[in-house]
């Protein structure tokens, strides 16, 4: 078992890298996890407004009072231009003299004067707010209400909101994605990274031409050599997979209940796929210096094109078409069913898993053939 020991010895030297990758991944995920999702929450913005009342009528006072319920009325000690520039004030409103009279006459022009930062969102927000208020008052006076009553009614009308609750986003169940189950959605990226960054250099080191030459001269049989390396790979893949399954359970104990056990199968198949990709990378790259680059390219491209980071429903048709030729695409399809982003369908899940397994088999065959070719070339 000398070759197996060698594999483990070289792998041991990469342990820091494994820990680093795992910790970074977990920190990022937990950041999302505990940071909560803001997509389903809505709070009204309150602007900082200074108001000058040149009309000084009950109507203008009622307006100021109403604005005070929705925004923060502030006074500025510094020059208004500076206050607007530094953002201590969002909007300067002046209620023009004759506001109440004009409003009663049905005039809506020239009621206010304002100063604000050009083209800012607060301008649009405040202009819309004032337009809405004036329109409501006008509607009430047009209906025959007196000004005092119209002002009150307008304020009441504007306080009536339609409650909106976000149950699902375009991507599906957001809460599901940001739970322990959602953790499995991001596994392809970390599995690919960990396999390519760790397994590929180990394989490249063991199979470097010079040392292979020396091993070929020794009394070790090629089959034994290959089997010992395979054993090393299997143990590494198992260890990484078990590690992430354990982390998955720690995040959500119910992750594997019900149809959740498919997470185990799904991630297991993808771990094998990642390992085969790592083996292929080790045989195709010219030097170990290029491994990190290859890892980033493969893991990021596959993650973005297959919907690991961005939900598949948000991907364009071309990206989807290309993604179908990548194994992570089918992993995400299964994962989406388990997180609730798509309706669970056992036969479809099995179909997607089979496609994934097909990728594993194909990659395995290519890796074996390439390895044999490499062996032959090492034998001169």
């Amino acid at each position, binding site marked *: 078992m*000398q070759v197996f*020991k*060698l594999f483990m*010895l*070289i792998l041991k*030297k990469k342990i820091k890298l494994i820990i680093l990758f795992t910790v970074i991944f977990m920190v990022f995920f937990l950041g999302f996890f505990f940071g909560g999702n803001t997509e389903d929450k809505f709070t009204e913005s309150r602007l900082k407004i200074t108001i000058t009342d040149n009309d000084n009528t009950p109507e203008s006072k009622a307006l100021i009072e109403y604005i005070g319920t929705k925004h923060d009325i502030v006074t500025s000690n510094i020059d208004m231009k500076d206050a607007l520039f530094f953002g201590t004030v969002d909007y300067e409103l002046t209620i023009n003299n004759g506001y109440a009279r004009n409003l009663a006459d049905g005039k809506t022009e020239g009621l206010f004067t304002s100063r604000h930062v050009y083209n800012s969102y607060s301008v649009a927000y405040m202009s819309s707010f004032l337009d809405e208020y004036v329109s409501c008052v006008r509607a009430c006076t047009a209906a025959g209400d007196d000004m005092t009553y119209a002002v009150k009614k307008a304020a009441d009308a504007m306080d009536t909101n339609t409650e909106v609750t976000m149950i699902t986003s375009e991507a599906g169940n957001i809460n599901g994605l940001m739970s322990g189950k959602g953790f499995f959605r991001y596994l392809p990226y970390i599995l690919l990274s960990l396999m390519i960054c760790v397994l590929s250099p180990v394989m490249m*080191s063991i199979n470097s031409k*010079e*040392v292979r*030459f*020396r*091993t*070929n*001269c*020794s*009394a*070790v*049989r090629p089959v034994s050599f290959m089997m010992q390396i395979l054993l090393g790979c299997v143990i590494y893949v198992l260890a990484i997979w078990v590690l992430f399954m354990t982390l998955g359970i720690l995040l959500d104990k119910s992750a594997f209940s019900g149809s959740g056990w498919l997470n185990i199968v799904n991630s297991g198949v993808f771990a094998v796929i990642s390992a085969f990709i790592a083996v292929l990378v080790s045989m195709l790259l010219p030097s170990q210096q290029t491994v990190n680059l290859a890892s980033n390219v493969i893991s990021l491209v596959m993650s973005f094109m297959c919907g690991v980071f961005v939900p598949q429903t948000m991907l364009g048709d071309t990206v989807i078409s290309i993604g179908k030729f990548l194994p992570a695409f089918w992993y995400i399809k299964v994962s989406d069913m388990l997180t609730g982003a798509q309706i669970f369908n056992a036969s479809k899940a099995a179909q997607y898993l089979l496609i994934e397994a097909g990728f594993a088999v194909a990659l395995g065959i290519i890796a074996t053939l390439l390895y044999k070719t490499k062996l032959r070339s090492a*034998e*001169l």
Partner: protein
Amino acid sequence: MADTVIKIDSLVKRYGELIALDHLSLEIKQGEVFGLLGPNGSGKTTTINCLLSLLSYDKGTIQIFGKDMSPTAYDIKRDIGVIMQNVAVYDELTVQENIDYFCGLYITDKEQKAQYVEDAIKFVGLEDFRKFRPKKLSGGLLRRLNIACGIAHKPKLIILDEPTVAVDPQSRNKILEGIEELNRNGATIIYTSHYMEEVEQICTRIAIMDKGKKIAEGTKEELTAMIKNTETIKVTLHELPDEVLSEISALPHVYSTDFAEERLTVSCSGGKHNLIRVLEVLQNHDMHIGRVTTEQPTLNDVFLEITGKALRDKEE
């Protein structure tokens, strides 16, 4: 008569139209330091690769320790140690781990392996560097590690393929001394090189190769005796009239003379007191003699005379 360790009979290796080995036959006896000498591309490494069954060949037979060599002859491989031109060690492992790994490919007994690894470390003088990674070692120390990895399992036959390429003179001497010690400890050595000085220094028998053929074989003395030249006299002179050069050319045993760049070169074949006779002629003509040297023929002269070209380029 010593036992035959290696017997190569009429070995032919072709790469398409190119004949890399052309009916090569060699016999190496136990306890020999056998040198394979030849210029780059002469077929030395191809011979070694065929010998180790790393390369298939078109014709001929190879026997090692009296048995046919094949890729699956693991019992034979167990007794062979290989040290190649390129350093073949794992950068991730320390000196000790590297030697332990390569020794472990042959020795399964844990205690015996530990002892052998220790012996190998001491043999190459890497006791103070056992925890060092290869990248931390100097070129010379790295070569020593390369050798330790090849000999740790105490093989009966050690094959060294140009182990001193790009090594400083000090480390080169250390390596050559080590090879001689391995031989004294009972190992049969095959040493390939294009450095004739090294081969002359350590090899008990030498085969000179060119274009895949063995062009000469024997001890250094036997090889130099094969050629006409027995002595080359070189004298530095300011000038040399033609009549004096003709007189020297007419001396007994002198078969070639040349005067160029203020240096007279006289090649002799056999005879005694050739130098005295040449100097007498020069004195008789009141020639102002500068530096005088006399050289015995080298393997390079042997190669030059047989093939008409030098063993290696001047820059090497």
